């Protein structure tokens, strides 16, 4: 296996993909958002509960590749306890690190950023994050 592939399918990513954080359907959640890429067919539903304007629970369900699943799992793991503004900041800095500079980022973000070097794989690691960002931006304005 090449070094680059080892980075892409890093243990941290494979852990998330094997044991994703909050992988469950919760149709009763306060917020239900579809993160769907019709072109590749990947589709996750994101479920968020808010309490006192903060995310109290975050989970997701659906179908996607290892990278999109890991990226979504990481998102779910990062949301609880944050209010929407904080979630927005978090997502923006994730996307920035991914695309422009992951040198100071967490190991898993560094790993996910390798996806951008692979043909056709960028969407996988940003789909859920960008979908939620759009939702929050709409909410906050």
């Amino acid at each position: 296996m090449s070094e680059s592939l080892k980075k892409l399918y890093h243990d941290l990513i494979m852990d998330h993909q094997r044991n994703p954080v909050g992988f469950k359907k919760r149709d009763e959640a306060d917020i239900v958002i579809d993160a769907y890429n019709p072109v590749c067919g990947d589709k996750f539903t994101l479920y968020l509960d808010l309490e006192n304007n903060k995310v109290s629970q975050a989970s997701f369900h659906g179908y996607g590749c290892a990278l999109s699943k890991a990226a979504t799992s990481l998102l779910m793991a990062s949301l609880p306890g944050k209010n929407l503004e904080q979630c927005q900041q978090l997502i923006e800095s994730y996307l920035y690190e991914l695309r422009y500079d992951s040198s100071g980022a967490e190991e898993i973000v560094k790993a996910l950023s390798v996806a951008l070097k692979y043909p056709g794989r960028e969407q996988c690691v940003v789909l859920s994050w960008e979908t939620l960002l759009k939702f929050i931006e709409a909410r906050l304005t």
Partner: protein
Amino acid sequence: MFAIDRIRRQFPVFRLTDDHPALVYLDNAATTQKPMVVIERLQQFYGHENANIHRGIYRLAHKATQSYERARTKVANFLNAKQPEEVVFCRGTTEAINMVAQGLRHQVTSEDEILVTAMEHHANYVPWQTLCKQTGASFRVAPLKENGSLDLYLLGKMLNKKTRVLAFTHISNTLGTINPVSEIVELAKKHQCLTVLDAAQSVAFDQVDVQDLNCDFLAFSGHKIFGPMGIGVLYGKTELLADLYPYQQGGGMITEVTEQESRFKNPPHGLEAGTPPVAEAIALGTALDFVSEIGLLNIREHSQKTLNYALDGLNRLGKVNTLGPGSGTSNIISFVMDMIHPHDVATILGEAGVAVRAGHHCCQPLMQALGINSTVRASFSIYNDTDDADRLIDALKTVQKIMS
């Protein structure tokens, strides 16, 4: 004997260089690689024979016109059309089908039905859906059996006297299923229904004889049969081509223009508006010569053999499901791996120098019918050998190791 080494050597892309360390190219259903003769034909035309066609009164233009028309004759012979006039040059399968659909628009009413199948490529699905939205005609989709093959019984029942067009594929670009064209055409003829055959995947795999198949229209793309991009063919029976309203209007297809109205040439020229891809048409002719020299029988036999060899390997791997009834009969195979997403498969294969396609293969309705999102597709051609199949299987083992 099928001299694979001699064939491979004719494709520059397989020469080992630093850029392409031993490419295993198994994406032939998307586009084929180009042999030297085709590349050289383009070079020769653009370097020494380049001129526009359409009544040029100097030698260069005349020669270009002759070569262009000779390419038309080559296509006609290749398809066993009755005459060269049944061959219209266009960009590819997609344009050919759109030409027919829009060419019929003035004749289709809200009483009519258009029938396609659930295994069509978007190119042979959406243009008909659009035509139906434009005219109010009913858009109907013939279903598949559970194994992914066409349900001929239900197809026969869906055909009726309102059915204006039956559009269907010869070989599924996703499953590799080969449809029984003659049988289906016969069903359609009982209802005086026009038949449009998508031959994008079949022309480079097996002998396609339009008189034998008796389809009314047929479409294919040059780039999938070792020719250049930007060139393709609409075949149509003479009197049916004449019924199509010209999809495009412009130079070269006109007899007379006045402010009040315009009159158009007969097909094929009346359907070829503007400067056509002359060089590309001529090089397509060269590609067809190349194919005929190898022989389609040999090509079919070789691709099937190689695919079956790969199929054995796949089955031995375990945790791999091949899709459709056609596995092993054509040159295309689709599969999914337990718990592993096709995109992850394709990325890891790509890293190993094995080029396959992953996704819905422009067949979203088929994916919906099969209840899946995407597949991995490997498609074989004349330059692929058992080494390529071995490299595929090896790479899939790596996939399973990484993703386990």
